[in-house]
């Protein structure tokens, strides 16, 4: 029994990693398509039908490029930076419940690699370590632009993680659990957390855009002022790792948003259809991915609509607007539960 579990978990883990990579790969394609469509263009359409092989071509190009490590750079840290960014981005996917439970031959297979009882904390931990990749890379490059980008990344992360954490505290007040599995199970049907925590969701969404370093919060890379920010000195696949980590982060944060606020793999009216449990599970996973894709699209949509913040605006928004709002949200939630649930 134990052995089947281990083997199943290993296989499932590999599948999750592969799905994450493929989705991230095609997010680059999707991003270019979305950007093009929003600017009345067509986007990549030469490599394969509808340009579907474009990510492969990009990957091959990245691998073929000359790899340059600046002479004055700290070699070890220079290589460590993108590795950390990539690894931490991949690791978050482990605790996300990708679906319910499959029952095959009398054995239950949970579609979640690890159901940590502190799941949300784990997400936060991984996201926070992720910024080390950027910081280390920016520092090791020995380049002032890279350093500036890294500093910006660090301060931005700290500023927005506070508001993010506080919006999550309000969510935990409603769910009463830190485990992602429990949170999803509570949102059965259409009882999604977005209806309990609309303000919290808004704050979380804004903060997660900031955490993934995407426009309008992409100050760490900021092509116009900092050339490329923290990855100015990077080339070849190390640069590819940084760019790729951003897309993986986007995928994972979409998954986390869908899990926390949009009911994860829960579908409305699924009970009334009278389908067998396995079919319900698979449909749920499919629906979960639809939600994730919607949020990925939302991320891109926002990126190609809004211009980048100025640095003081970014800090103003983080500290003077989002944090008080998040505190207010906690207070309001706590008061509500104090007077309704506890009494």
């Amino acid at each position, binding site marked *: 029994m134990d052995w089947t579990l281990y083997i199943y978990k290993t296989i499932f883990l590999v599948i999750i990693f592969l799905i994450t990579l493929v989705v991230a790969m095609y997010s680059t394609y999707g991003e270019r398509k*979305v950007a093009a*469509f*929003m*600017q*009345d*263009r*067509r986007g990549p*359409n030469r490599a394969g039908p509808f340009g579907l092989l474009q990510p492969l071509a990009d990957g091959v190009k990245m691998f073929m490029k000359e790899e340059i490590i600046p002479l004055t750079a700290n070699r070890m840290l220079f290589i460590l930076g993108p590795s950390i960014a990539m690894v931490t981005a991949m690791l978050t996917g482990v605790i996300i419940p990708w679906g319910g439970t499959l029952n095959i031959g009398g054995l239950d297979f949970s579609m979640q690699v690890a159901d940590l009882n502190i799941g949300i904390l784990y997400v936060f931990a991984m996201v926070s370590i992720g910024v080390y990749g950027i910081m280390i890379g920016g520092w090791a490059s020995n380049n002032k632009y890279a350093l500036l980008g890294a500093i910006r990344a660090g301060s931005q992360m700290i500023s927005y993680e506070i508001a993010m954490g506080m919006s999550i505290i309000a969510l935990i007040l409603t769910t009463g659990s830190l485990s992602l599995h429990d949170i999803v199970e509570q949102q059965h049907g259409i009882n999604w957390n977005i209806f309990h925590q609309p303000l919290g969701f808004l704050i979380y969404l804004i903060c997660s855009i900031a955490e993934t370093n995407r426009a309008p919060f992409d100050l760490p890379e900021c092509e116009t002022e900092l050339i490329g920010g923290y990855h100015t000195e990077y080339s070849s696949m190390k640069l590819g790792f940084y760019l790729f980590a951003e897309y993986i982060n986007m995928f994972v944060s979409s998954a986390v948003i869908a899990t926390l606020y949009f009911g994860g793999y829960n579908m409305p009216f699924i009970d009334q259809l009278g389908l067998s449990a396995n079919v319900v599970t698979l449909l749920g996973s499919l629906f979960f991915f639809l939600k994730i894709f919607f949020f990925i699209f939302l991320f891109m*949509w*926002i990126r*190609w*609509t*809004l211009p980048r913040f100025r640095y003081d605006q970014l800090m103003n928004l983080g500290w003077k607007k989002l944090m008080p709002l998040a505190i207010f949200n906690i207070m309001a939630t706590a008061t509500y539960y104090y007077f309704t649930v506890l009494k």
Partner: protein
Amino acid sequence: MQALTNRSKVVSNKKMNFWEWIYLPAIVKGMSITLKHFFRKKATISYPEQQREFSQVYRGRHVLKRDDEGRERCTACGLCAVACPAEAITMIAAERKPGEENLYREEKYAEEYEINMLRCIFCGDCEEACPKEAIFLTDRIVESDYERQPFVYGKDLLVEPLDPAKRIDISKRQTESVLKFKQNKRFAHNK
């Protein structure tokens, strides 16, 4: 000062009201605009598969016309070369020998006729200058190349084929205004 356009706006530093302050309505408005563009018809023309329709009077690659009996109309008078502002046209004249009456319409003809397509600005002055209706600009495109030399087009590329079926059609360029212009007595020699 007098305003140059009527599009100028007076900038005011008034305090934002609540809805402006939280930005969200403006963001939603902006996102609805980008979404509208998302579903709009694309302006792109996918070039090699799809080609933009040329204007009827498009001024592209030149042709040296033959008359109905297949004789070259050009008499190497050099007016096109004189008219050319880019000095792209050069020619060498020659005398028609007896027995060549089926090749050249008049006693003098162009032995060599070259247009440097890199110099040409496709203004159409040569066409206007030509008293014999020999040179015309067409809706064909001068093909790209890696070298310079292939852009110097000689008679082999300029004179239209003898085969009546393969003649280059320039009737689209003869718009009403052009025909009317040609009825002017001053240009009677153009017939």
